[in-house]
């Protein structure tokens, strides 16, 4: 079974799975949303889709809330 994917950029659902390690370029992988049935690409480097890998001072309040739990 594939591990859970990243939040869907179309509907926001967390019910997504990684379909492939690579998308249209090396830096992304392909994800599939089981709720809205959309395929999308997510940037790698361990950061969830839609969230940049940033030091605390550059994060938005929403990003801080997400990273703290």
């Amino acid at each position, binding site marked *: 079974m594939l591990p859970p994917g990243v939040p869907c950029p179309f509907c926001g659902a967390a019910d997504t799975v990684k379909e492939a390690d690579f998308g249209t*370029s*090396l*830096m992304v992988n392909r994800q599939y949303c089981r709720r809205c049935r959309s395929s999308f690409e997510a940037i*790698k*480097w*361990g*950061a969830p889709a839609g969230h*940049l*890998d*940033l*030091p*605390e*001072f*550059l994060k938005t309040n929403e990003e801080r809330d997400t990273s703290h739990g």
Partner: protein
Amino acid sequence: MVQTEFESLEGMSEACARGLGNLLWALADTKLLLGYHYGEWTFGTPALEAAVANCSLSQTELGHVRLLHAVLKKHWGEDPELLIERRPAAEFANVTFLDQLVEDWAAYVAANAVVDLAATRVLHTLQGSAFKPIRMSVDKMLDEERHHLHHGRGWFRSLAARSDGAKRLAEATRDALRAVAVWLGPADDAGDRALVAARVKAASNADLFAALTQDLTALAREAGLPLEPARPSSFGGWDARTRRMDARGPADEIVFHLRGSANELFKLS
């Protein structure tokens, strides 16, 4: 009584006006050199995506230079043409890590993850600045810098995880951090004290370096890379204008390319 907002330099103390001019000059120079080096690294990257990213990173840094030069021109009477085309290398106030060619990918990553971070930290202290002309521009620049740091941190993690990249990355990070510590300046700089007192800048040089090292040690710890940041034991010879302890500047080759001297013939009249 501290004036709450400055539309121009009018009403600002001489120390504060000079300190702010120096700071913006140093920011612009560091961004100019970052833009140059990012531009140089649009070839030879480990992945094609990094080359494309560097093209964008370079353009945004040079865009920030234009913006900062416009502020320096309007309020300090600086001539942007002169700042780039006719200034001696010894007058550049960039982080010295960028003085020479960025010779390998580890050094590039250090420039992106450490030097760009330092410039962004300085910008961040101007976000709520009492000097309105710069405050109006900072949010836009910070928004773009988020992507720069995301890029730098991603490659930092990636390189730190590689047995053949971690050692060189640790060396480059250490060198970049040392250069940044000098660039940020001594804790007792009069211009810096004046800026903080007038609420033009939110944090002192010492606080900025502490915050920067906190950012970097957290990243290095997560990436499993040893990092022991230290401020210079002495700032002897430190010049507030160039933010250097010696009178050197970027290499002649770099200054030549920044000026585009070879393309002078093709200028539109």
